[in-house]
Every structure is written in C-alpha cells, then in structure tokens.
C-alpha cells in the first residue's frame, strides 16, 4: 500500500517541480537570451489599437516582445501602486492618471494621445427606434449605462447635465464592454458606449451618434513609469503612440485627436 502511494506521490512532485522550473526560465527573458520584454498596462478600450501598435513596435525593434495587460483603468492603477511590473501606462481618463502622478510613479509628465466621445449603441434593428439622446429617457426604453464610478459612466453623467435629460437606466454596468454586451445580446434597447466600441462592434450594433457628445470628451494620457525595467524601450513606445504611426492607428479606430 505504501509503495503504491509513494509511486503516485513522487512522480506528481517531480512533475510539479519540473513544471515550475520550466515556467520560471521561460518568463525570465532578460537574464538568458537577447529578448527583452516591454510590459504595457492599458485601458481595455485600447485593446485592438494598442495590439496593432505593439506589433509595429516589435517589428521596429529586433528581439523585443511587447506584453499587454488590458483592464479597467482604476484596476491597473491599483496594481501599479501595489508594485506591478509595468513599463508603460495608458489610461482611459485623466482622473486615473492623476492617481498615478499623485504617488510620483511616473518617469516624466503624462502626455495626451487620444480622446473618445460617447455614442448610443442599439441592437442592429434598433427596436426602440432611438434617434436622439432624449429618446433614451422615454418610459419604455431599457437603457444600460456605465456606473458613474468608471470613466464612461462619469462621461454619461456629464452628458446628462449637458443635455438636460436625466436617464433611468435598468442597469449601471462596471465597464463599457459589459454595456456593449447587454446591447448585443438584445437585453437592452440601447446603451451608452464609446465611439470606438461602436466601430469595433461592427454589424453587431447600430450606432446612433448625437450632437451633444462633443461636449463631453474623455482624454487618454500615456506615460512611461519610474520603476520601469525597460525605461528606454518604454519611452520609445510612448513616442510611437504619440507619433504619426500610432496616431493613424488610433484615428482609424475612431479615436479623436488629443
């Protein structure tokens, strides 16, 4: 009985030990070969654009790999404040970047690289017939927005103030992706998302722009971090985003000028 238990136990231990050893040497790129890894923390609304910019960066710099961590801006700031190994940080609004600079975690002053405005998204057939922002306040319309605590929600609140229309949403979601999800699944008649989300969603939603959206603009800043393990590469990535190549990618996705 004991030999049988040991016969199972010992190989399991060896596999576990071997697995962790393998994992360790793979991720420790800077020690071994010539490959360097640049870690970029960016807001989730930047996923497709930054992945494209990252590929361009990798082709411009031999032996460099760009690793992304996309998430809610405030989540990313918390992680960086707790010591997460990021080289670059791009936020979906200035409020979260200010949290970072308040702790002096930046290498230089943050710079604005893009802006985003809100747009109404409806299911492809627009069942509730939404044509303007005021239509969202009609009694039968199920509208879903971002919670005020997140950047897109703060923009929604400002838009309500600018238009004088108060919304009664059926749900205040945690992120703009969740709002989009409720619209594409048909649960909501309409949702307030970013212009870039409507572009990315393509045929899954119908976008209904509204004139007052220009009055509320979310500005996206980017900065290289003080504790970056790759400070030179970090600054080069920031420059790429701010330069012509990066700006073209962002503009194509629907982002506005900073």
């Amino acid at each position, binding site marked *: 009985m004991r030999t049988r238990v040991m016969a199972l136990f010992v190989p399991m231990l060896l596999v576990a030990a071997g697995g962790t050893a393998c994992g360790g040497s793979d991720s420790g790129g800077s020690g071994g070969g010539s490959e360097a890894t640049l870690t970029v923390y960016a807001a989730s609304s930047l996923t497709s654009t930054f992945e494209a910019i990252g590929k361009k960066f990798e082709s411009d710099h031999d032996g460099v790999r760009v690793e992304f961590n996309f998430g809610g801006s405030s989540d990313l700031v918390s992680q960086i404040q707790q010591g997460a190994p990021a080289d670059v940080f791009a936020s979906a609004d200035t409020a979260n970047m200010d949290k970072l600079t308040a702790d002096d975690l930046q290498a230089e002053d943050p710079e604005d690289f893009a802006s985003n405005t809100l747009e109404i998204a409806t299911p492809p057939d627009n069942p509730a017939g939404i044509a303007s922002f005021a239509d969202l306040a009609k009694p039968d319309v*199920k509208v879903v927005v971002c919670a005020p605590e997140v950047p897109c929600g703060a923009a929604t609140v400002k838009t309500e103030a600018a238009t004088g229309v108060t919304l009664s*949403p*059926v*749900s205040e979601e945690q992120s703009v992706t969740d709002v989009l999800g409720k619209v594409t699944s048909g649960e909501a008649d309409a949702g307030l998302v970013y212009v870039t989300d409507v572009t990315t969603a393509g045929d899954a939603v119908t976008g209904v722009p509204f004139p007052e959206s220009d009055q509320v603009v979310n500005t996206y800043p980017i900065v290289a971090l003080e504790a970056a393990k790759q400070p030179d590469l970090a600054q080069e990535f920031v420059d790429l985003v701010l330069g012509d190549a990066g700006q073209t990618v962002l503009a194509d996705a629907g982002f506005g000028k900073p």
Partner: protein
Amino acid sequence: MANARTLGLPRWVYAPAVVGAAFVLLPLVAIFANVDWAEFTTLISSDASKDAFLLSLRTSSISTGLCVLFGVPMALVLARRDFPGLGVLRSLVLLPLVLPPVVGGLALLYTFGRRGLLGSTLETFGIEIAFSTIAVVMAQTFVALPFMVVSLEGALRTAGQRYEVVAASLGAGPTTVFRRITLPLVLPGLISGAVLAFARALGEFGATITFAGSLQGRTRTLPLEIYLQRETDPDAAVALALVLVIVAVLVIGLARQSSSAL
C-alpha cells in the same frame, strides 16, 4: 490502551494544517488591518451601502428558501432512488458547483433573457425577468442549489433507511415516514446545507452581474457594491467587505450552534 481522545495525530499533519489555516486566515487579517476605523460607520451607513446590504440579505434568504424547497426533494430522489442514468443526472445537477459563475449567468441569460429559450415566451406574457430582483434570486439559487443537494444527499446516504423501513412496516405512509423519521434524522445535514447555500448566495457575484445587471436597490447586491466601490473609494469597499465577512461568520456560527444542539 488508546482511545479516540488520547490517540495522537501523526506529527507531520500539523505543519500543512497550520499552513492551510494561515493561508485562509491571513487575508482576513489583512482586511481587518486595512479598514479605516475612523470612517467605518460613515462608510457602511451610506444609502448605497444600506440598499446593497438589505438587498443581499433579502435575496439570499429567499434563495436559501428556494434551495430548501427544491433541494430536499432533489436530494431524496438522488439518494434513495436508483434508475439508469442516475449518475449522469447527478453530475449534471451538480454542474453549477464547478461552472464559473459568469458562465452560469450567461446560461441563465440564454434561457430567461429576452431572446432566450424561455425568455421570448415569458415576454409575450408580460413577464420580464432581466434587470429585476427576481433575476438576482434566480442567479443565487442556481449557484447555491448544488451545495444544498450535495450536503443533504450525503447525510441521507449516511443515515441509511433502517428506521424508515421499520416505520413503514408499522404502517406509516411515505409522507409520515418522511416527516417524522427522515427529516429529523437528517436535520443537521439539512441545516449545514442551508447554511452553505446561504453563504454561497450571499457571496454570489459573477452570475448576478451577468444576468441581473447592477442597479442600486434593485439588483446591486453587496458583492457588486464592493466591486463598484473599489473603483473610486477603496476604503468603502474594504469596510463593506468586512461587513460581509462578519455576516458570514455569524451565520456559520449560529448554524453550528443550532445543529449541535440537536
């Protein structure tokens, strides 16, 4: 002569046991340490916090009631009947235990959502489930039911059917047997199952946010409120987290007391 009380545990058991306990307890200690005690009462008495707390208690209680209502019959059938496919049925019924809660929420959405399997039929009758408190209860019941069933089924199997057989041979009908023999016999298992189900329902997050949405007072339960508060007010999030921990400890403590008193 060794008896159960003097029989020692092998010494090597203590080290992993202590490490495991520390692993679970240290994060709780960390929460305690991070609470802003000066602002604690203000943070937990805001309108949003009170709404979330009361909503959580209400929905979890209803969900636990539903788990008892449906879980007891399910456990009885699984423990006491035998038919082809029983094993498969048991695995499927216990699926919510291993399913990621968000996947559970998606599944509920595809069933009861506007365009779902049953949802479109329900909508023609004017019953709208999405974005309502009912959706919260459904999500919680979905994830908590397996806890009830597993707990009770184990108790039923252990208890065996000796006493029921005797009672039946003395002339008691099935309902009487159930009411006066089976139920009192497995009451500790039922209570611990209900406690587990309540605790699971109280902490339910993924299925709720996916299926029911998040609106103060209607669908934003305490876990959802904590998740939202940590975006702007981490102190409020930690304070509310502590409230949740205290409620959980109280519920589990009370249940232990009542089940051991039997």
